[in-house]
C-alpha cells in the first residue's frame, strides 16, 4: 500500500505537470477551471429559467440531467477501458513496470488516480448544476447526489480496468468487443429515447437509471438494486487484477485521444482531386502541402475518429433529451440549432492532439526557407474541412427525426460560422497554450472552453437572429445577405490575424 501511494504521488505530480512550483501556471489553471464552472453554472441557470418559463418547474430537469451525466461518467470509464484501461505515463512504462512493483499495487494506485482525476472533472460542475436547479432544496438533493456520483465513478473505474485487463484473457479484439458492447448497453436508454422507442419497464434496473432515480427521489434504498452489478463487476475485477497485465499497458495518458494507425487509417491519403478543387495542388503550393499533411495526420493518428465519436454521442443526447422531457419544456426544433453550439468540440480535440504530438515536429517546417504562414493556413483549412461537412452530416441526421427544416438558411450560416470560428480559435489556443502532460489534464479544459465559448460569441449576431421569429424561419434575402456578409467579413479578419500574427508562436 505504501508503494501504491508513492506511485500515486509521482503520477499526480506529473499529471499536474508544469503547474507545480510555477505561480503563473497555477493562476492560469484556476482561471480555466473557474471558466469551466462558470460555464456549467450558466448552463444550469438557463435550464432553471427555461423551467420557470415553460411552467414545468426547474426541478423537472433533474431526471434528465442525472440520467445523462450518470451515463456520461460510465461511458467515459468505458472509453478509457477501450484505450487500455490502466492509465500510464511513458515514464511509468519505462521505469515502474520493469521494477518489482506488483501489478496489483500498480492497479490500486491507478484506481485512486482515476478517482481523483474523474472527481476533478465531474463532481464540482455536477454539484453546481444540481444545486442550481433544485435550489432552495439543494442541500437535501446534494446529500444524496454526491455519494451517488461517487458510486458512478467507482463503477466507471472498475469498468475501465476490467475492459483494459480483459485484453490478457480475450485478446485485443475480444476486449474491444466487450467494451463497445458495454458502451452500447450503458447508452441504451438514451439511444431508445433518441429513436423514439418507448422504454420497457425492465430498463429501470439499468445502473445509470437506478442512480439517477436515487438522486431525483432523494432515496438511497433504490441503490440496493445496484448490488448485483457492483458484486458482479467486483468479482470479475478481483479475478482479473491478479493477472500480469503489464505487457498490454500503453502510455494512455498521452495518447488517450489518439489511436495507433490501423490497416485502414494508416492508408488514408488526401485525394489529389480535393486539393485541386480547393486550388491547392500539393506540388505547387506550400499551403497545399501543409493542408495535406494535417488532414493525413488527423485521419491516421485517430484524433479525427475520437472527435467524431464524441460529437456523435453528444448528438445522441441532443436527440434524446427533448424526447425524454416531452417537447413542452423544450422547443424541439432547438436541437437543430444546438448542433452548431457543440460542433467546435471537434477542432478543439484536434487542437489538443496537435499540441501533444505535432508541435514537436515544427523543427521540420522551421528548417524551410519559406514563410511559416502556409503552415497555419493549411492547419486552419484542414480543421474547417473536417468540421463543416461533419456538422452538416449531424444536421441532416437530426433533421430526419425532426421532419422539417424551418430555419434552414439561418442554421446553415450558423453552422458555417461556428465551424470556422471554432477551428480558428482551436488553432489559436493550441498556438498560445502549451499542453505538456496529458490530454486528460485540467489544463486542456482551456482547449474546450475557448473554442466553444469564443465561437458562440463571434457568432452572436447569427444566434440572436435565430431567436427572432418570424425572421428566423422566413428570413428575407437582405437578412441572409447581411448575416453572410457579417460572417465572411469577420472570418477574413480572423484569418488575417491568425495566419499573420500566429507564426511567432510556432515554437
Amino acid at each position, binding site marked *: 500500500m505504501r508503494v501504491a501511494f508513492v506511485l500515486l504521488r509521482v503520477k499526480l505530480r506529473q499529471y499536474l505537470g508544469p503547474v507545480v512550483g510555477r505561480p503563473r501556471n497555477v493562476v492560469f489553471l484556476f482561471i480555466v477551471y473557474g471558466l469551466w464552472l462558470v460555464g456549467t453554472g450558466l448552463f444550469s441557470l438557463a435550464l432553471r429559467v427555461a423551467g420557470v418559463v415553460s411552467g414545468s418547474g426547474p426541478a423537472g430537469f433533474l431526471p434528465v440531467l442525472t440520467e445523462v451525466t450518470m451515463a456520461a461518467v460510465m461511458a467515459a470509464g468505458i472509453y478509457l477501458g477501450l484505450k487500455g484501461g490502466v492509465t500510464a505515463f511513458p515514464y511509468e512504462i519505462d521505469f515502474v513496470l520493469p521494477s518489482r512493483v506488483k501489478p496489483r499495487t500498480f492497479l490500486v494506485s491507478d484506481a485512486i488516480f482515476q478517482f481523483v482525476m474523474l472527481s476533478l472533472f465531474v463532481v464540482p460542475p455536477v454539484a453546481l448544476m444540481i444545486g442550481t436547479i433544485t435550489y432552495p432544496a439543494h442541500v437535501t438533493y446534494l446529500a444524496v447526489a454526491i455519494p451517488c456520483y461517487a458510486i458512478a465513478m467507482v463503477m466507471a473505474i472498475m469498468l475501465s480496468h476490467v475492459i483494459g485487463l480483459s485484453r490478457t484473457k480475450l485478446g485485443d479484439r475480444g476486449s474491444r468487443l466487450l467494451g463497445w458492447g458495454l458502451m452500447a448497453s450503458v447508452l441504451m436508454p438514451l439511444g431508445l429515447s433518441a429513436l423514439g422507442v418507448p422504454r420497457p419497464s425492465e430498463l429501470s434496473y439499468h445502473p445509470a437509471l437506478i442512480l439517477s432515480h436515487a438522486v431525483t427521489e432523494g432515496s438511497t434504498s433504490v441503490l440496493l438494486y445496484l448490488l448485483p452489478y457492483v458484486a458482479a463487476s467486483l468479482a470479475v475485477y478481483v479475478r482479473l487484477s491478479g493477472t500480469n497485465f503489464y505487457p498490454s499497458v500503453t502510455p494512455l495518458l498521452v495518447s488517450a485521444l489518439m489511436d495507433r494507425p490501423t490497416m485502414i487509417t494508416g492508408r488514408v491519403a488526401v485525394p489529389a482531386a480535393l486539393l485541386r478543387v480547393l486550388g491547392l495542388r500539393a506540388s505547387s503550393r506550400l499551403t497545399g*502541402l501543409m493542408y495535406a499533411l494535417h488532414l*493525413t*495526420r488527423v485521419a491516421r493518428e485517430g484524433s479525427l475518429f475520437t472527435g467524431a465519436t464524441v460529437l456523435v454521442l453528444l448528438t445522441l443526447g441532443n436527440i434524446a433529451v427533448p424526447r425524454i422531457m416531452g417537447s413542452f419544456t423544450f422547443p424541439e426544433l432547438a436541437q437543430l440549432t444546438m448542433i452548431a453550439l457543440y460542433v467546435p468540440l471537434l477542432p478543439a480535440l484536434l487542437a489538443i492532439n496537435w499540441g501533444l504530438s505535432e508541435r*514537436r*515536429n515544427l*523543427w*521540420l517546417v522551421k*528548417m524551410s*526557407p*519559406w514563410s511559416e504562414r502556409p503552415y497555419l493556413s493549411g492547419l486552419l483549412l484542414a480543421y474547417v474541412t473536417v468540421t463543416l461537412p461533419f456538422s452538416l452530416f449531424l444536421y441532416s441526421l437530426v433533421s430526419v427525426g425532426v421532419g422539417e427544416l424551418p430555419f434552414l438558411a439561418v442554421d446553415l450560416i450558423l453552422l458555417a460560422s461556428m465551424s470556422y470560428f471554432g477551428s480558428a480559435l482551436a488553432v489559436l489556443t493550441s498556438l498560445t497554450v502549451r499542453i505538456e502532460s496529458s490530454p486528460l489534464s485540467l489544463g486542456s479544459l482551456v482547449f474546450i472552453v475557448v473554442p466553444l465559448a469564443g465561437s458562440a460569441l463571434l457568432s452572436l449576431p447569427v444566434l440572436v437572429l435565430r431567436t427572432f421569429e418570424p425572421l428566423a424561419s422566413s428570413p428575407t434575402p437582405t437578412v441572409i445577405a447581411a448575416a453572410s456578409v457579417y460572417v465572411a467579413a469577420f472570418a477574413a479578419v480572423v484569418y488575417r490575424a491568425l495566419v499573420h500574427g500566429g507564426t511567432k508562436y510556432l515554437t
Partner: protein
Amino acid sequence: MMIEVKDLWKSFDGEPAVRGLNLTVRAGSVHGLLGLNGAGKTTTVKCVVGLLRPDRGHVRVAGRSATEDVSYKSLIGYLPENPSLPEYLTVREFLVFVARLKGLGGRELQTSVSEVAELFGLNGLLDKLIFGLSKGLKQRVAFASAIVNDPLILVLDEPFNGLDPEVQSVAKAEMKEISKRGGSVLVSTHLLDTIERVCNSATIVHRGKDLASGSLEELKRSAGLDSSASLEEAFLRTVSRVRE
C-alpha cells in the same frame, strides 16, 4: 566562410548556456564540435540553423545573417539531436515532404528521394509508416531527409545515435563527399575516434565558450601533446586544464 559565429550568447530562464562562443567552419571542411554534456553544443547548433534566436552576437551562414535572412535554409541540411518525425507519414511521404519544403520539385525530387533511400538502405521500407520503425531505422530516415536536398552545408547533432556500423560508414562517406565538393559539415558528437577519422578541424566547447579551435594537429599541440597522441587525450587534457 561557410559558417561564422562571433561572440554568441544564449540564456534559458536567465541561465546562460552559451557565453561568447566563436566558431568558424571553412568551405571544404568537416568540422567537429566537442564538449562535455551540457557544454552548449546543441544550443550553438540550433542558433546556426535558425531554430534559436541568439541573445547577442552574430551568426552568418553561407554569407547571410541567420537572424535576418532565412534564404540560406534551402542550402542546409540538419539532423537534430533527438529528431521527432511525423510518424503518421510513410517513409516516402516524409522524404518527399522534406524535399518539397527545401524547394525541390518534379523529376529532380523523385530522383533525390530514391537516391537517399538507396543510400541508407530504406528501399524496402518506403511505403511503411514511420510509426512502426525501430529507433535506428528512424535515425536513418532522419539522416536521409537531411541530405535529400544535396545540401551545401550539413549540420549534424549526434548523428550516429543508434546507427549500425554499416550505415555509420555510409554516413561518414557522405560527410566527406560533401566537403570534397566544396561544401562543409558541422558535426557535434562525443565519438572522438570518429572525429579523428572524418574531421579536418574541430572546436572544443566548454561551459558555453570555445576553449580551443583549429585542425586536429593544432588541438593536440595546444594541449601540449605531439601528433602521435590521440584526440581523446588532447580533449581530456584541454578540458581538465580549465577545471583547475
